[in-house]
């Protein structure tokens, strides 16, 4: 079970409120007042824990203004895990004053694959009928609803077989954690992941009974639901007897790595595994000629500390790889953050878009489906014809057609 507020007491008491977190928090940079600072949220959590403030919608609103991007946790001179404190404070709020709608979504729908698939199907029907656009134009739906764009006709799980054999000799049997965003929003990314892994000698297993990784639940204060999911998922992988578990979603990978239920299961970040396989088997690679830049997903660079592997991979396959300014700055997506705080999210995104434009890259690669969604939304909004892809999709192109 993740620490509750009481369990984190020693951590939040250590906060000296120096304000160093002001220098890195993307939400603060957009909102520009103290109510949005990480130290302010730690302060709120403290007040909530001591009972000095009551759980109410205002507190909820303040605490919801966090992307859980961990920029502050990484920067904090006192090494305070602000993201854990915010999650625990949200759990405390859910416990004291639950919101029925959110509870329904995160606890009763998102945790059950069939219900989630139904909800996605329903969303697609609504989109086909144009009701979403109507709802958006009438202001009945928050503008963040437009972010995912039209959902693909078929989810990845519906088309990709449960077991894909290695293209040649089987060198590794991997469990592929096909996360919710990739499944419903980017089935093409899932196809690339499976194809690339198979090409590089992996037997790829996608257990049909897999559920959500638990991160959306943790972020929305449903910590026990997150634990149940992790526990169910880890059991699935234990039964399968795979040598490693990978995911093309940085957030899912981080959630699995950090979950105590996954202790003993080898979770490898996709780009690290791919790089290892590429070096080992040295396949022919066709160079991508268009200029490519890379956006660090927070759950990869800050949560997992991985920044080198994806770049090394991209340098292997791109003739013109170039860094953008602030590559590891958050894009403002933060899971469902943009749904609640669309304007703030877009203000954060604008900075990212400006950096991408300045880089003059024609392709942006990244390793997180929600970052792809967010950055595409921003580029479209700015009228830029710059492609946003998952790194694994580029690698698939570089590997060329199977011969």
């Amino acid at each position, binding site marked *: 079970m993740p620490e509750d507020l009481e369990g984190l007491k020693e951590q939040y008491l250590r906060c000296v409120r120096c304000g*160093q977190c002001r220098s890195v928090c993307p939400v603060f940079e957009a909102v520009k007042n103290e109510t949005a600072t990480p130290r302010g949220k730690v302060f709120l959590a403290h007040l909530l824990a001591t009972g000095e403030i009551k759980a109410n919608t205002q507190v909820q609103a303040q605490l919801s203004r966090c992307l859980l991007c961990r920029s502050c946790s990484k920067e904090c001179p006192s090494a305070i895990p602000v993201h854990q404190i915010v999650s625990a404070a949200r759990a405390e709020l859910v416990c004291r004053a639950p919101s029925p709608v959110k509870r329904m979504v995160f606890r009763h729908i998102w945790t059950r694959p069939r219900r989630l698939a139904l909800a996605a199907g329903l969303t697609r029907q609504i989109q086909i009928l144009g009701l979403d656009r109507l709802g958006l134009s009438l202001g009945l739906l928050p503008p963040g609803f437009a972010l995912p764009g039209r959902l693909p006709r078929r989810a990845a799980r519906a088309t990709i077989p449960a077991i894909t054999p290695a293209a040649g000799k089987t060198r590794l049997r991997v469990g592929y954690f096909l996360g919710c965003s990739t499944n419903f929003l980017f089935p093409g990314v899932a196809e690339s992941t499976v194809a690339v892994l198979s090409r590089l000698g992996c037997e790829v297993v996608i257990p049909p009974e897999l559920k959500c990784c638990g991160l959306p639940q943790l972020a929305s204060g449903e910590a026990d639901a997150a634990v149940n999911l992790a526990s169910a998922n880890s059991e699935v992988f234990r039964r399968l007897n795979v040598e490693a578990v990978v995911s093309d979603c940085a957030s899912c990978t981080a959630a699995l790595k950090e979950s105590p239920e996954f202790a003993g299961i080898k979770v490898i970040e996709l780009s690290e595994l791919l790089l290892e396989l590429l070096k080992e088997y040295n396949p022919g690679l066709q160079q991508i000629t268009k200029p490519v830049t890379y956006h660090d997903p927070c759950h990869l660079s800050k949560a997992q500390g991985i920044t080198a592997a994806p770049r090394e991979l991209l340098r292997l396959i791109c003739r013109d790889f170039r860094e953008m300014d602030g590559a590891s700055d958050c894009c403002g997506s933060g899971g469902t953050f943009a749904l609640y705080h669309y304007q703030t999210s877009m203000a954060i995104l604008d900075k990212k878009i400006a950096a991408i434009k300045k880089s003059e890259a024609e392709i942006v690669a990244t390793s997180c489906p929600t970052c792809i969604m967010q950055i595409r939304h921003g580029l479209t909004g700015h009228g830029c014809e710059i492609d946003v892809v998952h790194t694994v999709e580029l690698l698939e192109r570089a590997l060329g057609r199977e011969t």
Partner: protein
Amino acid sequence: MDRQKLGAELKRIFPPERVLTSELERRMYSYDSSFMARFHSFVPDAVVLPQSTQEVSALLKLASQHRIPVIPRGAGSGETCGCLAVRGGIVVDLSAWDTIEEVDVANMQVFARPGVVHYKLNEHLAGFGLFFPPDPGSTRMCTVGGMVANNSSGLRAVKYGTTEQYVLGLEAVLPDGQVIQTGGANDCRALKNVSGLNLTKLFVGSEGVLGIITRIRLRVWPRPQARGMAMAVFSELELAPAAVLDVYQSGILPSGIEILDTSAIQAINMYKPEINLPSAEAILIFEVDGNPAGVAWEGQQIAEIVGRHAVSVEWATDPARMADLWRGRSVVAVAAARLRPDGSRIFAGEDISVPLSRVAETLRRIKELSRKHDVAVVNYGHIGDGNIHTAPVINLDSSAEVQRANALVDDIHRLAIAMGGSTTGEHGVGAVRNQYAVDEHGEAALVMKQLKETLDPLNIMNPGKLFPPEGGKDRA
């Protein structure tokens, strides 16, 4: 005026999104980084976020009319409750007003609004080959407005001095709403100016008790091309100041000289074992900057001179190695808490300044006081200018320890005055050191108060700070 009415009045001056009145929003302005703010909740009646001088002027007219306290605030990174509404009132958060208006390269100066963050200013100036030399440890969040109001400095004050040396002029709004330009009206861009009383210097370090600074004209310097660092290890504390004196005597002025004592070395090694500092009574870190040839020569000289006193000296110009050495110094403020598992480092009595000749003696006395009050203390600081940072480490949950810490802090402040020093070298007075004003300044403290009364007869500007409280010691 009740809060609701105040909110409505403020919204006639500011757009509604720049007026914060809900209890929760106001609470977020009840703290800074001080120890005192952990035990007192100074919740303001309202918070405003100005974006123009006119707004500030209108605000002060309103506040004067109704005699409402006004408290300017930068990033809220201070250690003295300086930006807190200890007597209620309106907090003016200037940190969002962060425009760098002009870099006048030909005249070596920059014009900035108060909310510009220090490192962002220097990042911008670097593009012109310039820099603003004072370098507080809070560079990544503190604002230049806050720096001017507190006359901040930092590690490199040894060579570059404090903020006051760089402030050429200010636009300030007086408590009655009148706007003045100090350092010459009519867009004065002179670097030297001795005409009239120096109101600029009066405002620098005035901690918001005279008015609100709304625009700053700063002198900037050419950026040094090279940097080098030396770390020296001493078996006896007293040898360290002796080595510093010898370096000065040899005609070298390092940009910074930092000291870590046994407790700091121990804390750093516990926090980041990989830094692996040698155990010693003291470690000194020298930094020199300038042109490459000069830096190399000075580094060699320092290594030789300091080597006569030290157990070992290491000289580095490699950026990675310099970063390593500097890391030892930079993590100490935080590492201090590692001295005990349930410990928190507190910012109180943390900034005394003593004569160079008495640094070693002061450090020994602080150790005695630490034993007397049974409170662990980590010592480090800018030995090059006698500014010592003491970091008491206590369990915040224990009221007995909090009480002992307060007694220790009082003794440390009094020790500084007894040593011929000051209770604060760079952090300021605020509401945590104002009780020492008369002890430290004597009759001059009363003249300060008269000046304040002349400029702010209604006492609306940041009341409860800087000046000794009426009727003896009250904590705000």
